[in-house]
């Protein structure tokens, strides 16, 4: 893999740039939440409900409370006040599980926290938590997998605000489907999936009077600050949230979970720092999961493959109290040209923990369904699945009646097909062989939203020739540290090794959630504005400092390039290094602040902004031992300009690996009797390991999308996962003749 760093004077933007935080990550010095230890720190371990529905009627703490090292066993009676939080303006006050921990004695999901053991060591806290005896009245939990939409009005409340069940419609879908010469009507199911970042969710809480500091494994420190400030009745400025490094989250760490207020309440009560790290089992219970979905897709088409109607009706499960919306229709209404369309959803409550965003929320399960339906229609019509998509490529976003800012999906198909060798595909089932293996080839398209969140950043130029760029947003492994350094270098000409990046702290300028693949796109204008303002400040210094070579010059006469200030009319190389000017002025630094607006959810948008792409998948099939493996993948992505191809390719490859897991392995099973997520370990919840990862050829189109930002960079964190499962199941069908419409594809599905 080429990793040529920028040469002297070259901007690192658009070049494969090794991560600036890499040396810390590879030497164990990057500090994640649970790596922070404080004098006198206590360890907290929650007591989990072992029923999924019922009430706590007795809490026997006699044994646990007397165990060595125990400082407190906290529960509903003694935890102290924890308030509720409400949704605020913008991206503020968001919380997937709104009920504060211990608020009542009702148990609504297996693993719900009942008490909290706090002790001097982890071993003592865990032993005490295990020794708490809980008496329940039990009810039969509802974890039924078959989902039927509950009777609800069209207008609903969701975690993010109101939603309409009839999500999108145009034309007369019912009539068009009824009259369509060719029809497809299938239901696709995706299981509950668990995020399972390898870093366990963790909180360390420290109080200093009425100030609360939280070290938290978070994809959104500012939202978390706001929610926790509400829960403890504090002004926001009294709460600081720090998340320097995040062991990824995949959406599961976007919003606060109940362990965070528990740790804070324990620290408040005991007057000492409290560290609470979840167990892997808890990761399946109390920190969100991707909802199970059941999606009926109906397609009406002409015999030559033009879509005349599209129905997408989906149902998902959610917890007993909360209202997370799994927007499976995210892409349906704009992805294809179809005159008659209806997208609608329903919901079904289950005794499960709160559902949450997981990488490509909504669109990933949604596109699995719609892209699978398209593939089935292509087979039904006996036309190539690429051709079917080309036939139905829209010229504009037909749901918003807006032009796309930049859509090059057809070119993705061309490039992907060429790199994969798609033209050699024999569509006959089981017809393609290599050695003793049957090959299956499948493809699918993908898309994911592109937009900006509001963002602020600051940039300092310092008298030792270094710069510091800061934003409170966090790097969840997507390369944000490096992107910020690249952006600062692009504007200032300062080399990466002289740029310090500060992230993951609410004391820094307010940055976006690490979600929606929007961080990079949001930060470009903010950092650029900060850099411009720092340079302006520097030029003012240059013209006003006694003894400055530019003392007699007007501000407008000066320019800044590659770290030097110079007179516009002169050769930039004859300019003065900025460090020299700062030293002359006896200034340690000049600072510029930058701010940019969000575009996410803008009702006045002039363009429909999305990223696009496609996947081509080859599987090998050995019927004699029922062994199915993904053997290679080609992915073409149109995500605007790629700022760091090295990290960018890695993102897409990693998402494809997750897509292989989604297609073939991953599902959270709920025990019918107890409602427990029964496979709640990394041995029983199967995720792809290194041996499962095939060669993945990623191609970026690299067309800048200037509607998003100056550099034309959209985000790439999620799109790589969308569509993979549909491409895999198409390949499985091509090899085996078996159409699997409920993920994951299991060996038993293929043993015929």
């Amino acid at each position, binding site marked *: 893999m080429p990793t040529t760093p920028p040469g002297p004077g070259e901007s690192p933007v658009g070049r494969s740039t090794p991560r600036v935080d890499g*040396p810390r990550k590879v030497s164990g010095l990057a500090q994640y939440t649970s790596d922070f230890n404080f004098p006198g720190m206590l360890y907290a371990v929650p007591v989990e409900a072992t029923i999924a529905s019922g009430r706590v009627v007795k809490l026997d703490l006699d044994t646990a409370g007397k165990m060595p090292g125990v400082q407190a066993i906290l529960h509903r009676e003694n935890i102290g006040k924890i308030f509720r939080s409400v949704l605020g303006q913008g991206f503020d006050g968001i919380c997937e599980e709104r009920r504060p921990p211990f608020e009542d004695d009702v148990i609504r999901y297996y693993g719900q926290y009942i008490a909290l053991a706090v002790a001097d060591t982890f071993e003592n806290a865990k032993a005490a938590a295990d020794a708490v005896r809980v008496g329940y009245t039990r009810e039969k939990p509802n974890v039924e997998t078959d989902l039927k939409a509950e009777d609800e009005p069209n207008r609903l409340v969701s975690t993010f605000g109101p939603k309409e069940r009839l999500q999108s419609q145009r034309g007369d879908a019912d009539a068009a489907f009824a009259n369509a010469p060719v029809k497809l009507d299938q239901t696709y199911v995706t299981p509950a999936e668990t995020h399972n970042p390898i870093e366990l969710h963790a909180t360390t809480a420290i109080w200093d009077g009425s100030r609360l500091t939280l070290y938290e494994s978070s994809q959104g420190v500012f939202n978390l600050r706001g929610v926790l400030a509400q829960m403890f009745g504090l002004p926001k400025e009294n709460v600081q949230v720090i998340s320097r490094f995040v062991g990824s989250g995949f959406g599961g760490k976007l919003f606060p979970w109940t362990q965070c207020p528990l740790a804070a309440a324990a620290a408040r009560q005991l007057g000492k720092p409290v560290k609470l790290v979840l167990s892997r089992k808890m990761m399946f219970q109390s920190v969100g999961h991707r909802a199970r979905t059941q999606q009926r897709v109906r397609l009406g088409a002409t015999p030559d493959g033009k879509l005349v109607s599209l129905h997408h009706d989906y149902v998902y499960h959610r917890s007993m109290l909360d209202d997370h919306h799994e927007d499976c229709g995210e892409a349906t209404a704009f992805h294809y040209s179809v005159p008659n369309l209806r997208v609608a959803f329903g919901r079904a409550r289950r005794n499960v923990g709160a559902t949450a965003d997981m990488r490509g929320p909504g669109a990933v399960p949604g596109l699995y369904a719609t892209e699978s339906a398209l593939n089935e229609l292509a087979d039904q019509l006996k036309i190539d699945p690429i051709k079917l998509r080309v036939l139905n490529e829209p010229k504009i976003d037909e749901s918003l009646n807006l032009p796309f800012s930049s859509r090059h999906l057809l070119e993705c198909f061309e490039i992907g097909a060429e790199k994969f060798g798609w033209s050699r595909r024999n569509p006959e089932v089981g017809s393609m062989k290599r050695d003793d293996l049957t090959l299956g080839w499948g493809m699918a398209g993908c898309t994911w939203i592109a937009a900006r969140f509001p963002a602020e950043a600051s940039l300092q130029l310092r008298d030792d020739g270094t710069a510091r760029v800061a934003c409170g947003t966090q790097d969840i492994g997507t390369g944000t540290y490096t992107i910020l350094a690249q952006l600062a270098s692009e504007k200032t000409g300062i080399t990466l090794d002289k740029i310090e990046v500060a992230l993951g702290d609410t004391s820094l300028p307010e940055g976006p959630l690490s979600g929606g693949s929007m961080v990079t796109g949001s930060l470009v204008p903010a950092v650029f504005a900060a850099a411009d303002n720092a340079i302006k400040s520097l030029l003012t210094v240059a013209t006003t400092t006694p003894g400055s070579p530019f003392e007699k010059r007007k501000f407008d006469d000066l320019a800044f390039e590659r770290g030097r200030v110079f007179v516009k009319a002169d050769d930039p190389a004859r300019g003065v290094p900025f460090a020299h000017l700062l030293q002359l002025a006896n200034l340690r630094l000049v600072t510029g602040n930058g701010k940019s607006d969000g575009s996410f959810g803008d009702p006045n948008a002039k363009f429909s902004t999305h990223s696009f792409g496609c996947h081509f998948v080859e599987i090998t099939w050995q019927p004699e031992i029922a062994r199915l493996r993904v053997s290679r993948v080609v992915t073409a992505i149109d995500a605007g300009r790629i700022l760091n191809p090295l990290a960018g390719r890695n993102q897409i490859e990693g998402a494809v690996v997750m897509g292989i897991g989604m297609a073939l392995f991953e599902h959270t099973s709920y025990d019918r009797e107890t409602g427990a997520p029964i496979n709640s370990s990394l041995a029983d919840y199967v995720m792809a390991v290194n041996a499962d990862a095939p060669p993945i050829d990623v191609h970026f189109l690299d067309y800048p999308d200037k509607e998003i930002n100056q550099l034309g960079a959209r985000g790439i964190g999620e799109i790589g996962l969308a569509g993979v499962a549909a491409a895999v199941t198409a390949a499985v069908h091509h090899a085996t003749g078996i159409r699997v419409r409920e993920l994951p594809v299991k060996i038993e599905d293929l043993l015929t």
Partner: protein
Amino acid sequence: MGDNPEANPTDPNRRAFLRSLGSSAAAVAVAGCSTVTPSNADRQSGSRIEDTVSITLRINGKDRPLRVDPRTTLLDCIREVVALTGTKKGCDHGQCGACTVHVNGRRVNSCLSLALMHDGEEITTIEGLGAPEALHPMQAAFVACDAYQCGYCTSGQIMSAVALLKEPCDGSDAAVKELMSGNICRCGAYANIVCAIQKVRKSGSI
């Protein structure tokens, strides 16, 4: 529980060591066994941890005399007692590989071992390989190949990768992938991890 009705695991008086046995009782009852016994006499004053036992771990070339709870895993000992936090906890059950360290030069899951079992043994953690200003060739290769994303499993990946180069392995990508499959990378940077290992293998630098 089970065949053993007398075992009462929640007895609050059941501490790290059964008092009734004590060192002398054990010595009489169990000839040929040395009971590792906590001693009140030599307990460091001010220690918050009761019933700790003295051991010495040689971590990254340095002898570390420690007092540990017998229940403390090698992983928790390294992280919470010695405060070397580069080694990570991902599952605590030997199912992810994030806690991989070397014991006497071999890679193991430190979460499934008790610290006490390693008295006098040589432990190498990620911090013992190299620091940012002087990276081990494998650490440098991980940076160059972008063999990570979030970085949380990375310490374990690198400890496995370094050990792998000394283990029986035919050197093919397929063999490397199989032998690295005990380290889950949820970010899925598997191809780049293989790239980093093969880069170091080909360079012959370790």
